[in-house]
């Protein structure tokens, strides 16, 4: 069989070296080369390669951001490449995933590709490991960006730029200081993803970034109002009041 591969790396010479190595084999077809996170997501979803040679450090979304997005629809076999990233390497070791330390030799690359092809033929068993890797990264607050699709383009919004998140039916709106982005995800799923990044649910429909919170003031009938640094005022749901106060107390004992 011919395996369709995509090479993602932000350094053109590094990509061409991998391509050169892969072209020396007769069982690989390189379908695309990409240089950043967004491009990699787009090409992967469009071309649906079997194998992804994925660099971790890239502009516009790193390798993990790419996987988190791609894995909702596509599950290619992934060979991670990195020059130096202790954190990523530990994560790969935990899930026994294959990774290549750059610079690598053609022998080392070929061995990894051979293994990938074998697992492709057997039926992709490594997808579970990748899913577990993503779970592990989520728990350790590695999520620093959320992917947004708007007006036919996709881009990342930094979680630190988000002040609050509003749920509306099947969508949520991410509010940054100057903009509002819609994404198709449930607020509960987002809450689970963003909890380690100091986001707290304050209402059935509201999730706020504690970094953006100015104060919490008592309102009528024992209700509370959360006031953000930007001046936005949000109701604190009765069932979420304790949750918010607990989070705030954990952060700043003075409040």
């Amino acid at each position: 069989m011919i395996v369709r591969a995509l090479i993602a790396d932000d350094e053109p010479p590094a990509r061409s070296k991998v391509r050169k190595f892969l072209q020396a084999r007769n069982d690989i077809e390189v379908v695309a080369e990409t240089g950043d996170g967004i491009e990699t997501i787009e090409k992967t979803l469009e071309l649906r390669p079997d194998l992804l040679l994925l660099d971790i450090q890239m502009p516009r979304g790193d390798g993990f951001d790419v996987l988190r997005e791609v894995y909702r629809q596509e599950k290619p076999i992934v060979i991670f490449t990195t020059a130096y990233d202790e954190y990523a390497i530990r994560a790969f070791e935990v899930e026994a995933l294959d990774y290549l330390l750059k610079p690598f030799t053609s022998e080392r690359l070929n061995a990894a590709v051979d293994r990938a092809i074998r697992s492709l033929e057997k039926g992709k068993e490594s997808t579970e490991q990748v899913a577990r890797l993503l779970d592990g990264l989520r728990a350790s607050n590695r999520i620093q960006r959320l992917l947004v699709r708007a007006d036919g383009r996709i881009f990342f919004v930094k979680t630190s730029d988000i002040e609050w998140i509003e749920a509306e039916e099947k969508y949520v709106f991410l509010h940054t200081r100057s903009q509002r982005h819609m994404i198709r995800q449930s607020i509960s799923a987002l809450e689970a993803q963003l909890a380690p990044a100091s986001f707290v649910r304050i209402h059935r429909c509201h999730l706020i970034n504690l970094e953006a919170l100015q104060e919490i003031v008592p309102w009528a009938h024992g209700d509370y109002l959360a006031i953000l640094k930007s001046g936005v005022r949000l109701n604190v749901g009765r069932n979420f009041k304790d949750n918010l106060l607990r989070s705030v107390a954990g952060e700043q004992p003075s409040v």
Partner: protein
Amino acid sequence: MNAYSAKSDSERLETTPSLPGRPAASSGAERRYWIQLSDINWWIVLFVYTIGAVLTAGTVYTSGLAQGSNMPYGYPLLWEFTGHYTIFALVPLMVLGFSRLPIRRQNWYWTVPAHLLISVIFGVIHTLLMLLTRRGVYSLLGLGVYDYGQMGYRFLMEYHKQFIHYWLVYAVLRVMAHYRESREQERRAAALELKTSELQRELAQVQLQALRSQLNPHFLFNTLNMVSSVMYEDVDRADHMLSALSRMLRMSLEKDLATSVSLRRELEFVRCAMELIKARFGERVLFDIECSNADEDVMVPSLILHTLIENAIKHHDLEREPVIRVQARIVRKESMLTLDVLDNGPGIEDVSSAMNSGVGLSNTRQRLHALYGEEYQFEIKNRPEGGLHVHLGIPLTAEPPLVAL
């Protein structure tokens, strides 16, 4: 625009321990301390005078017995208590006098006579006080009129004792002051030792971080990977990269790089690093060093420029601004060497807190402080057109700066 001067929080290292006694005279070159009224526990002094009164009354009484007198013990007791307590009342004035008019090696020829005169005045006052209180007590107890004999002789007789007393007070104050001073010196020595070891620790920390950043593993491995890739396409370019990398490695292996280097070396290091960074980023990085009138032999803290440039590149957000522009300007201005690093990155939201928490910047500030004390400038501000401007000024020296310990 938000500018922050590093000088504001350097008091931490400058505070000298506060002293309980004020310096006695500002004229002397040496700092000497004298005992103030508040330094004395007056209850103890009162106790001493009471004991003194009882004991001297005992001697008067017993010597009367020896001479066959049958005077009751109450009389000498009354005399001595009035005598001692009136002088006790005058002791604070003496303490004040000695602290206002301290006797020093360089002024004794007029202060000692002055104190002799003061002691005479004290004597007269004390004798009069004694006379008045005894008369008062006598009339109160109905003992008749107190007769102190011929007052001319009495003043003279009492002055003998008062003279001894006056100088005894001086001696006691002297001893107390000396004791305090030596205690204070010990305390200050201990504080100085603490400050020194703190500074040394800080310096060691800073140097360790500097050493680490020279061989930033990210940089090293990325460069090695780059060379390994470029090699297939362009052998000459790969060769250039290896040569730049080895020059950097060689410089960073030099032992003395941890403190300061000549500007020439620093620039060479930075140029090598930039060459490698350019090889990696290609068109995405524009880099420019301007070093117009500065003598390249002047000493600068090692890696000072490199850290700032590395910082600018590290914090650059390629998503917002696809091309990294870093400009470094080195200018000699009178006795200072100024280094300005400008970038087109995202800038800093909170300039003053970044100064303290941003690892690169606070590290730089600590190093500057350890090397130059207060003699440096360090400011960061957001540029109006976007990006960050870091300004450094260090004193010009051809010698390595003395470590401020």
